[in-house]
């Protein structure tokens, strides 16, 4: 499959086999981004800034993984937050009860998430549009209810109590705030790099084709169900990683992590940042968290502020910020070409 003439909604170019150089550029960009992030604690003496970036890492991974479904495959999931919650609870429970090291707990949590995602995805991805959205929401509420009800394991609505131990591994001590920050940044950058490779791979362009015309995709021999299920599971894994970062940040796991509002925030982040660019959700995450932190400081009417911003984006702009940025860049480039 060297070339697919996929009609991209966002006006992107058709898929052409990606040169290795492009992947190398991604790797270099990731290393530079990590280096900049890792330098921040040494440039600014602000614990709040580190907290902010850790939260950005958790929600950024979650929102970008949701964009693999929403933006790239056209699967609007209202229940993606269940995997965020599953990651937080899986990791927290393993650390509290199984007495394993952090990397082992992380790998096991990803395995648990993968199994859950395969089962749930196998049912959900057969459905289209609103039916898919509602069934994912139903599964999310099911998992949330299980967390609330299974008190002996999850602590019910009080969450996992007693803190999450963070034993030293490979010389990394996550009880140290700066090390936790750098670890979270590393997970974020690695996660984004992997998702970028998925999005730009032939599989990623297959997803775009399914989004634009699933019937056409199946006619040329693509197993649409399998492709959808694969991306559903992959997205779940990255969302789970986001949940693990959050559980490390708050040293616990709470039912709210698996509640539908987390999925709603994910959708909103995608609206804010835009779904037609890879970094749109990351930009949306930063905007939402700044908006949240600022509005909480200045007013008690956070909901009103957020509602106005949602209306502004949904009715006024009808695009995310990165979509505008890309449009402006293209217009500027075309103009520059004309002038030359």
């Amino acid at each position, binding site marked *: 499959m060297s070339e697919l003439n996929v009609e991209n909604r966002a006006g992107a170019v058709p898929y052409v086999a990606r040169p290795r150089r492009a992947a190398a550029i991604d790797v270099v960009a990731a290393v530079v981004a990590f280096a900049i992030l890792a330098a921040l604690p040494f440039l600014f003496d602000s614990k709040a800034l580190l907290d902010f970036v850790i939260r950005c890492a958790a929600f950024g991974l979650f929102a970008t993984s949701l964009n693999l479904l929403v933006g790239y495959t056209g699967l609007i999931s209202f229940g993606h937050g269940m995997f965020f919650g599953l990651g937080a609870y899986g990791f927290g429970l393993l650390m509290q009860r199984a007495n394993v090291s952090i990397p082992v707990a992380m790998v096991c949590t990803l395995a648990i998430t993968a199994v859950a995602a395969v089962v749930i995805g196998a049912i959900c991805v057969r459905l289209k549009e609103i039916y898919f959205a509602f069934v994912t929401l139903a599964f999310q509420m099911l998992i949330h209810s299980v967390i*609330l009800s299974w008190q002996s394991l999850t602590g019910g609505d*009080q969450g996992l109590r007693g803190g999450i131990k963070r034993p030293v591994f490979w010389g990394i001590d996550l009880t140290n705030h700066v090390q936790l920050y750098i670890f979270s940044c590393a997970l974020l950058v690695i996660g984004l790099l992997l998702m970028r490779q998925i999005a730009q791979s032939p599989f990623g362009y297959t997803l775009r084709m399914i989004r634009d015309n699933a019937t056409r995709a199946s006619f040329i021999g693509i197993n649409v169900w399998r492709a959808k299920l694969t991306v559903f599971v992959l997205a779940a894994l990255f969302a789970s990683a986001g949940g693990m970062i959050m559980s490390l*940040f708050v040293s*616990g796991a709470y039912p*709210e992590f698996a509640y539908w509002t987390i999925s709603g925030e994910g959708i909103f982040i995608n609206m804010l940042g835009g779904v037609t660019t890879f970094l749109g959700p990351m930009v949306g995450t930063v905007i939402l968290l700044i908006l949240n932190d600022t509005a909480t400081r200045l007013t*008690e009417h*956070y909901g009103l502020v957020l509602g106005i911003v949602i209306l502004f984006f949904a009715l006024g702009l009808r695009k995310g910020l990165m979509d505008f940025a890309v449009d402006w860049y293209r217009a500027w480039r075309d103009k520059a070409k004309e002038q030359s």
Partner: protein
Amino acid sequence: MISERGRVPVEEGKMTKTGKPGINRRTTLALMGAGAFTVASPWVARAQAKTIKIGMPTILSGRVAQLGTSSRNAVMLEVEKVNAAGGLAGRQIEMVVRDSKGQPQEAARIARELVNTDGCEIILDGEASSGSFAVHEVARDIGVLCIHTCSEASSLTADPKQHIPNAFRCVRQGIHDSIAGGSYAANIAKAKGLKKWATCSPDYAYGRDTTAEFVTYLKHFAPDVEIISENWPKLFQPDYTETVTKILQAKPQALYSALWGGDLTSYIDQANIYAMFTQMEVFAVNMADYTALTVVKNLPKGIHSGNRYIKTYPATAENAAWGDAYKAKYKEYPTNWSWQNATAVMFLSEAAKKANSTDGKKLAEVLTGLTIKCPFGADGTVTMRGEDRTLVGYAIGWGTTIPNEPYVPEVKSGDWKQIFALEAEWKKSKGYT
């Protein structure tokens, strides 16, 4: 070589050159010291007069916003008194209150931000349920002095895994209410022959735990009691018709409910339509709180309730004055959360006086086991019990409602000795001790 006086010694016979009378080393040091003092004195003065910031993450929006607003009101009422009396060990208190929207991750973030960015030295945790556990972990992580003021979950302080030297809980507890309620209800059950009971409580940890504990102690004191119907409506459920009719069909002689706030008032309004309160004795642990008492359209006579906050119990002039002062200032009655938050500020004030310091560690040491005078104490005092850093000795009792003020005219006090004895057994049964 320069002499001690700063003059250069000269050899004998040579022209004597007297060193230029100037500033010697001692003078230099003295001047430097004086200069430093002059430059620094405004800073020293400012540091001494510097306000102490106390951070408070709480819920100021959504369905339980009243938790946060009534907590904040009470805190501000007490802080004004403390500041007027000279502050906390001479430092004026500045409160920084933020809305967590009831989300634990936000509660944790805000608590960290309050300490790390806003410079708060003490945290009053006005969070409920999971939010309080999230703030507790922040206190464990960064070591800030933290007083929980709203979370009634017993495990927050009963579970030894939760024990940290810098966290305290200034809140009533479900286990205390259940023991006092079980004892009170058992006496009524024996006197009136109430053997068939039903329960109706919200379907989450607080509702299930409190109900289970109440039933345990009811049966402990009145072994003949039998539960014939259990009902678990969802938290914030709007329609209780199904639950009400199910209970009526079961025909119990008495009903216990741990519903609270808007859920309880909705339930009573809807159950009134079916004349439920004329058909059975009702025990609603959370009824005697102005948030419920003043909102119910037709408050039935004779509902048995634990005290949450009413200004007539404890029946002291101090409590009545406090309730009136709150109402005069905020044009509404205080809530159960209000007295708890006010008590937390009273504890801080007293601890700062004893420690003569606002240092978190010193305050924590003094707070452990501290007894203070308090309008909300069963005997005019309350204690921050040393072993689990939690509030005991607060006024706890049960009585029956009337439709108008004072709403619960006679409250029968719970016996703290009995509560302590049974609480110790409960802790053992849970594996906490």
